[in-house]
């Protein structure tokens, strides 16, 4: 491509291109060198594990190692296509929790951001933001403990009911309420924090649009519908894509912590299924097989959702 251009023009237009690779390496040696530790860490702890996925096709025995363990073809994947009840249960729990979270948790920060944005006093807004962002920084262990203190048997709610001679309610240990409990914990922890993105998007909406629509006689609800929500549309689509790509991933730490209280039947999701089978029950190959399929389906979901976004005329997470 460079050979067809006169040398002088090429040198003036793009001097970089004309440097040989070793000259560029010499010029950029510091940049390459400082990038190395981080890249190395990603290679070892992010990319090297991918190779470990071969145990999905092996009968992995820890004491003889990955290389020596016998190949078993697709045997480990039978739990998936033969529909092992434990696997199906984990899959359905995962999808139900995802559905609940998309319906309940996803819209909450949008509504909350609209409320915050309508506060006139900037100081009050700052204070409210500081309070609502805080739970995001607490660990799942802390969040679960906080919910126990509120709704557990000896918690605030039941202490109150007991001192007023009312019947106590079992929330934390009730299997039927578990999925709603998990969803409300995510809501408590992250709804406030998630407003940060929507507030930024709201701040970028042109004020003139509001003024023009007010002149045209639009009320507040019509402004919300015709100015505000269109302004948030791209961000909503982007976040929905990311959430859909994560459909098969629901709070691993959060659920493993609460599994003892309600049992696996209602609480086991794909990630905890992998953990319980592979590491606790030493069924390594099956665990890795389920984990591998889950990862691949996740990638397909992101790509599919992104394509859908392009169809709708949005940018999505990457453009073509």
């Amino acid at each position, binding site marked *: 491509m460079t050979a067809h251009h006169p040398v002088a023009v090429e040198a003036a237009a793009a001097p970089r291109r004309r440097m040989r690779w070793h000259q*560029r390496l010499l010029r950029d*040696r*510091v940049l390459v*060198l*400082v*990038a190395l*530790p*981080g*890249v190395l*860490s*990603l*290679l*070892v*702890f*992010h990319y090297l*594990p991918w*190779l*470990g996925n071969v*145990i999905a096709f092996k009968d992995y025995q820890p004491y003889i190692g*990955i290389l020596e363990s016998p190949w078993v073809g697709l045997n480990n994947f039978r739990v998936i296509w033969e529909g092992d009840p434990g696997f199906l249960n984990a899959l359905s729990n995962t999808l139900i929790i995802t559905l609940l979270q998309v319906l309940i948790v996803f819209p909450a920060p949008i509504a909350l951001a609209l*409320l*915050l944005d*309508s506060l006139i006093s900037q100081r009050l807004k700052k204070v*409210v933001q*500081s*309070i609502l962002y805080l*739970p995001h*920084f607490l*660990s799942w*262990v*802390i969040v679960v*403990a*906080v919910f126990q*203190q*509120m709704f557990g048997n*000896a*918690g*605030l709610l*039941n*202490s109150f009911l007991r*001192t007023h001679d009312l019947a106590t309610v079992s929330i934390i240990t009730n299997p039927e309420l578990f999925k709603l409990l998990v969803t409300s914990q995510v809501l408590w922890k992250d709804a406030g924090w998630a407003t*940060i*993105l929507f*507030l930024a998007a709201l701040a970028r909406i042109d004020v003139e649009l*509001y003024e023009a629509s007010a002149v045209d006689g639009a*009320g*507040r*609800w019509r402004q919300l519908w015709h100015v505000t929500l269109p302004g948030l549309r791209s961000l909503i689509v982007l976040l929905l894509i990311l959430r859909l790509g994560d459909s098969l991933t629901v709070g*691993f730490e959060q659920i493993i*912590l609460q599994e*003892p209280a309600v049992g696996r039947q209602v609480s086991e999701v794909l990630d905890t299924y992998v*953990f319980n089978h*592979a*590491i606790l029950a030493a069924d390594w190959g099956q*665990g890795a097989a389920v*984990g591998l399929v*889950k*990862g691949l389906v996740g*990638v397909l979901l*992101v790509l599919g959702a992104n394509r859908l976004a392009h169809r709708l005329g949005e940018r999505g997470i990457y453009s073509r």
Partner: protein
Amino acid sequence: MITAMGRPSPLARAAKGLVLALCCAAVVVPFVGIVSTSLATREEVTRSGGFVLLPGEISFAAYEAILSGGVVTRATLVSLFVTAAGTALSLVATTLLAYGLSRPGSFAHRPLLLTVLFAILFGPGLIPSYLVVKSLGLVDTYWALLLPPMINAFNVIILRAFFQELPPEVLESARIDGAGDLAILWRIVLPLSKAALAVIGLFYGVGYWNAFFGALLYLNDSGMWPLQLVLRTYVVNQTQLGIDQLGGGAALPPQEAVQMAILVLSIVPILLVYPFVQRHFSKGVLIGAVKG
């Protein structure tokens, strides 16, 4: 509710205020209760049936018990060490990587950048990651908590975007003055990036402080446990803490107070750093990343 010209009706404003107040209460009330219970005396705990919302009499016995040696003291020191060491490692490696990637057209820029970007999209699976950590001989060492999460690819991209928005004239004039790439990083880029580094450092620090699963997976020796695992054992799973687990030898404070004191202890460091970094959130790096 529909008013003609922009201003909301008093009823709508009251409703909004009420909703926001309830949201704030949902965060604040549990904290007040947790702190109160940790300070409560045995009589008060018995009277309230476990959880004390507002204490009458205040006692610091629970804090004395958990902080005078024993399981909780040791776990707190472990967590402080892991958080400090991890944050330092992560911040250095992330800054260097982001700086190394901040000049498009430099040597191997594209493959290196793609290495980082793909890491965001496809995380490693649980089992293969465990096998890597195990085969490197890191199980039952603190390296297992420090090395795998060292680079968060998303943080690299945020910081890189921030570096690229620094005024190019300043960097160029430094280069004309004969400064090398390292000198430019140290003398110009870092001083201009304090806010971004503070926020990224907070993200890493909170991550290390809150990490629970890595320790569960990789540390078999309970003597090495960080605070989050102790919190799970004695607060979430309600295992009783006895004289053996606590320091000192005085009369045992009520179990509920001890549990809540551990909970407070695990929250306090986050509350301490939060205000310093909180003001950077809205104007800082996040917005830049979203735009990009």
